[in-house]
C-alpha cells in the first residue's frame, strides 16, 4: 500500500515533468513559428528590395538601347545580370508592351514543383518603368527565384530547431532538479506529518491509519488483530525532575526496546506523551497478545541510564483483541484504554487483557464522577472525625477528618472507590477545598461548644499540592474560619512528595511559615528516603496501619525503627489502625506519642464527637 502510493506519486511527478516539458516545447514551437514567419517576411522583403534596385539599374541602363532600338546591346546588358544568384528572368517591354529584350536564367525551372505551386514560394516579380528625361520608354519586369528564401528559411529553421532542442534539454534538466527538490520536500513534509520526531516512530495519526487499515484487511479475512496500549508509569517524574531532554532520551530508549521486543510484523507508534501503541497483526491466538505484552513489560523493567540517572521505565499495558473484544477501531481503542486503566489501578507495571466488565467499571466510574460533582454542589458530602489519643494521658488530643459520601441510592460509597475518580477528574481540588473549610469550621465550633481545642488533621491529595493556589486557599480558609493555624495539621503522603520534590518542599516551608503543622501519612510504605526526611519541615510521622496490624507478634522491628527515627528527627509519632489492647501496650512502651484506631474510637459524626468530648472531659473536671 505504502509502496503503491509512493509509486503513484513517482508516476505523477514524472507525468508532471513530461507535461512541463511538453508545455515548454509548445511554447518554443509557437516562438519558432513566429520567428520563421518574421524571417520569411524579412527575406522576401530583402529580395524585393534587391530586385527593385536591380530593376532600377536595368531601367536606367536600358533606356538608351530602347531609344535606339538596339536589341543586341539590350541583350548584352541584361546578360550582365546572369551572375545574380536569384534573378530568374528579366524582360524589357517597350512603350507598347511588346517584348523588346529578355533574359532567362535556367534556375527558375529547377524550383521543385511542390514548392513552386505554393503561393508562398511563388516567384517574385518586380516591374519598373523605363524613363529617360521624363520620357516613358517602356518597362522592365524582373522575376526572382525564391530558392534563396527557401534555403534561408531552411537554414534558419534548422538553427531554431537546434536552439529549441538545447533549450528543452536545459529546461528538462532544470525542471528535473527542481522537481526532485520538490519531491524531497514533499516527502519530508509527509514524514513530519506521520512521524514522531522524538522517537522516529509513527505518530498518533499514522498509527491510527495503520490500525484502520489492518482492521479493514483482517475484517475481510476473519483474522485477528491485537492492540496493546503501553503507558509509561513514571515518565512524568523523569520529565519533571530531570528535564525534557532526559524525558526525550527515556522515550527514545523505550521506543528502541519496544522495537526490539515486538515482532517484526507489528506496528509500533507513539500516540501520546508517554503512551505507545503496538498493533499485533496477524494475531492467531488471543493468548499470544498477553505474552507479547508481558515481554514488553519485562523488557521495560530493566533499568535504563538516562542523563546519568538510573530509571526503571515500567509500563502498564492494556490489551484488546479485534474482533473478539471490539468490532470497530474506536471501540478497540476505548476498550484497550479501559484495560490500561485497570492495569494502572492494579498497581502498574503489568498487562491487563480487556474484559467485558471493564466497560461496566468504566461506566460506573463515569457515573460516580457525575454524581460526585452533583452531590458536592448539593452539599451531600459529609465529614466524620476519628479521634487521636495521647499514649501517656489517654486523653483526646486531636481528630483526623475523613470524607464520607452517603449516596442517596447506593448508600455509603468507599473513599477507596470515589477518591481515585475525584483525583482523575480534578474534582479533588474542589472537594479538598470544601473538606478544609468544613474541618476548620467544625474545629472552631467544637472549641466554642466544649472549650477545648482539638488538633484537626486534614488529608491533602497530590493534585491539590500541584495547585499553585493551594497555599492561598489554606491561608484564606484559616482567616475566614478563625481557625488557629497551629491547630491545623495537613497530612501528606510520601509518594506525592516524591513526585515533585522541589515544589513539595517549597509548599511545606510556606505552610509551616503560616504556623500550620505537617505530617507524613503512611510512612514506610513507599520509597521512603531518610535523607529527604531530614529536609522535610514536618512535625509528625504516621505509622501505617499495615505495620500496626502485625503488632505485637511481628513487625516490631519496623515500628520500633520508625518511632526511633521520628524521635531522632524530633518528630512525634502517630500510629493508626490500633485495634487491639496488645498493640496499644506495645506502642506505648515503644514510646509512640499518639494512637488512633477502633480500640479507642471509630470515626464519629460531628455531634457524636462533641458528645464524646464533653463526656470525656466530665470525669476530669
Amino acid at each position, binding site marked *: 500500500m505504502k509502496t503503491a502510493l509512493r509509486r503513484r506519486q513517482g508516476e505523477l511527478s514524472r507525468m508532471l515533468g513530461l507535461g512541463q516539458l511538453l508545455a515548454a516545447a509548445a511554447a518554443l514551437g509557437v516562438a519558432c513559428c513566429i520567428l520563421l514567419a518574421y524571417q520569411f517576411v524579412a527575406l522576401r522583403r530583402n529580395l524585393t528590395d534587391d530586385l527593385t534596385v536591380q530593376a532600377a539599374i536595368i531601367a536606367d*541602363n536600358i*533606356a*538608351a*538601347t*530602347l*531609344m*535606339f*532600338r*538596339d536589341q543586341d*546591346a539590350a541583350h548584352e546588358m541584361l546578360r550582365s545580370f546572369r551572375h545574380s544568384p536569384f534573378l530568374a528572368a528579366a524582360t524589357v517591354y*517597350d*512603350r*507598347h508592351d*511588346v517584348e523588346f529584350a529578355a533574359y532567362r536564367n535556367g534556375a527558375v525551372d529547377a524550383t521543385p514543383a511542390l514548392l513552386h505551386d505554393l503561393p508562398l514560394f511563388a516567384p517574385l516579380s518586380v516591374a519598373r518603368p523605363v524613363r*529617360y*528625361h521624363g*520620357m516613358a*520608354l*517602356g518597362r522592365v519586369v524582373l522575376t526572382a527565384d525564391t530558392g534563396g528564401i527557401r534555403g534561408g528559411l531552411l537554414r534558419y529553421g534548422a538553427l531554431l530547431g537546434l536552439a529549441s532542442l538545447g533549450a528543452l534539454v536545459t529546461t528538462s534538466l532544470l525542471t528535473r532538479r527542481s522537481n526532485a527538490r520538490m519531491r524531497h520536500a514533499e516527502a519530508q513534509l509527509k514524514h513530519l506529518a506521520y512521524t514522531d520526531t522524538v522517537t522516529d516512530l509513527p505518530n498518533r495519526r499514522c498509527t491510527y491509519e495503520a490500525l484502520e487499515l489492518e482492521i479493514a484487511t483482517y475484517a475481510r479475512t476473519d483474522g485477528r488483530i491485537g492492540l496493546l496500549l503501553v503507558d509509561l508509569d513514571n515518565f512524568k517524574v523523569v520529565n519533571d525532575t530531570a528535564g525534557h531532554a532526559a524525558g526525550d532520551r527515556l522515550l527514545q530508549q523505550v521506543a528502541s526496546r519496544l522495537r526490539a521486543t515486538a515482532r517484526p510484523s507489528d506496528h509500533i507508534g507513539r500516540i501520546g506523551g508517554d503512551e505507545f501503541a503496538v498493533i499485533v497483526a496477524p494475531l492467531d491466538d488471543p493468548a499470544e497478545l498477553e505474552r507479547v505484552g508481558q515481554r514488553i513489560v519485562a523488557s521495560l523493567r530493566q533499568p535504563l541510564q538516562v542523563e546519568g540517572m538510573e530509571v526503571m521505565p515500567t509500563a502498564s499495558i492494556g490489551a484488546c483483541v479485534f474482533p473478539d473484544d471490539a468490532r470497530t477501531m474506536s471501540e478497540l481503542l476505548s476498550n484497550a484504554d479501559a484495560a490500561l486503566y485497570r492495569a494502572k489501578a492494579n498497581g502498574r507495571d503489568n498487562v491487563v487483557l480487556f474484559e467485558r466488565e471493564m466497560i461496566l467499571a468504566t461506566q460506573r466510574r463515569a457515573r460516580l464522577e457525575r454524581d460526585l460533582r452533583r452531590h458536592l454542589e448539593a452539599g451531600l458530602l459529609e465529614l466524620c472525625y476519628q479521634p487521636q489519643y495521647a499514649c501517656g494521658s489517654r486523653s483526646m488530643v486531636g481528630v483526623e477528618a475523613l470524607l464520607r459520601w452517603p449516596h442517596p441510592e447506593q448508600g455509603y460509597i468507599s473513599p477507596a472507590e470515589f477518591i481515585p475518580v475525584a483525583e482523575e477528574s480534578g474534582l479533588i481540588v474542589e472537594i479538598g477545598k470544601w473538606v478544609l473549610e468544613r474541618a476548620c469550621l467544625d474545629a472552631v465550633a467544637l472549641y466554642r461548644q466544649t472549650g477545648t481545642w482539638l488538633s484537626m488533621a486534614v488529608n491533602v491529595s497530590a493534585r491539590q499540592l500541584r495547585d499553585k493556589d493551594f497555599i492561598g486557599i489554606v491561608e484564606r480558609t484559616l482567616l475566614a474560619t478563625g481557625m488557629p493555624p497551629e491547630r491545623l495539621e495537613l497530612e501528606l503522603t510520601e509518594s506525592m512528595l516524591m513526585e515533585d520534590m522541589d515544589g513539595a518542599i517549597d509548599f511545606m516551608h510556606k505552610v509551616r511559615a503560616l504556623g500550620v503543622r505537617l505530617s507524613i501519612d503512611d510512612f514506610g510504605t513507599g520509597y521512603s528516603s531518610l535523607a529527604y526526611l531530614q529536609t522535610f519541615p514536618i512535625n509528625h510521622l504516621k505509622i501505617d496501619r499495615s505495620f500496626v496490624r502485625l503488632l505485637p507478634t511481628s513487625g516490631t522491628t519496623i515500628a520500633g525503627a520508625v518511632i526511633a527515627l521520628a524521635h531522632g528527627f524530633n518528630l512525634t509519632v502517630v500510629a493508626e489502625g490500633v485495634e487491639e489492647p496488645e498493640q496499644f501496650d506495645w506502642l506505648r512502651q515503644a514510646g509512640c506519642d499518639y494512637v488512633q484506631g477502633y480500640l479507642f474510637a471509630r470515626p464519629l459524626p460531628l455531634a457524636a464527637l462533641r458528645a464524646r468530648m464533653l463526656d470525656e472531659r466530665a470525669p476530669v473536671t
Partner: protein
Amino acid sequence: MVRVLPLLALLSGLGLAVSTCRAQVDGVDLKAAYIFNFAMFTTWPDAGARGPLVVCAQPDGPLWPSLQALNGRPVNGRPWSVTDVAHPKAAHCDIVVLARTAQPPALPAAGMLVVRDGVVRVGDMRGAAITLVEDDEHIRFDIDTQEAARCGLRFSSRLLRLARNVL
C-alpha cells in the same frame, strides 16, 4: 530597307505624330529621330542655355521634312527648332545636319554638333562628330570623340556604348 517595327516604336516612343499608314516608310524619319535622340545624350558646353535648340539642315536635303516635323519638341527643356543651314543665323547652330556629300563647315564652331548622314568613303568622317551609317539594313552610327571634343561637346556613355565605332 529599314525595319518597320523599330521605326514605329521609336517614333511613337517620342510621341511624334507620324503618318504610319504609308506602307513604304523611308529611313529618313528614323534618322531624324536618331538625331533627336543624339541631342538627348549630348551635353553642350553652354549647359545653362534655355533657348531653342537650333538644328541647321539643308532644306533640299532628304531629312529636312522629318527634322521639320520634330519642331517644338523639347530636348532637355529646349524646344527643337529646325532652320536653314544657309540662313545668316547658321553660325549659332547647335546641331548641323549634313547630307552625305555636303561639305562640313570649314571650322566648326564651339558648341556645334555636326551630324553627317552617310559616309563618303569608309574611314572618312572628317568634320562630323556623329556619322549615320546604314549597316546590314540597320541604321547605326559612328562617333568621333575628338571632333566632338574640339567643339566642346560631351556624349553620354550610354550613347557611346551604342555606337558602331568610336574614334
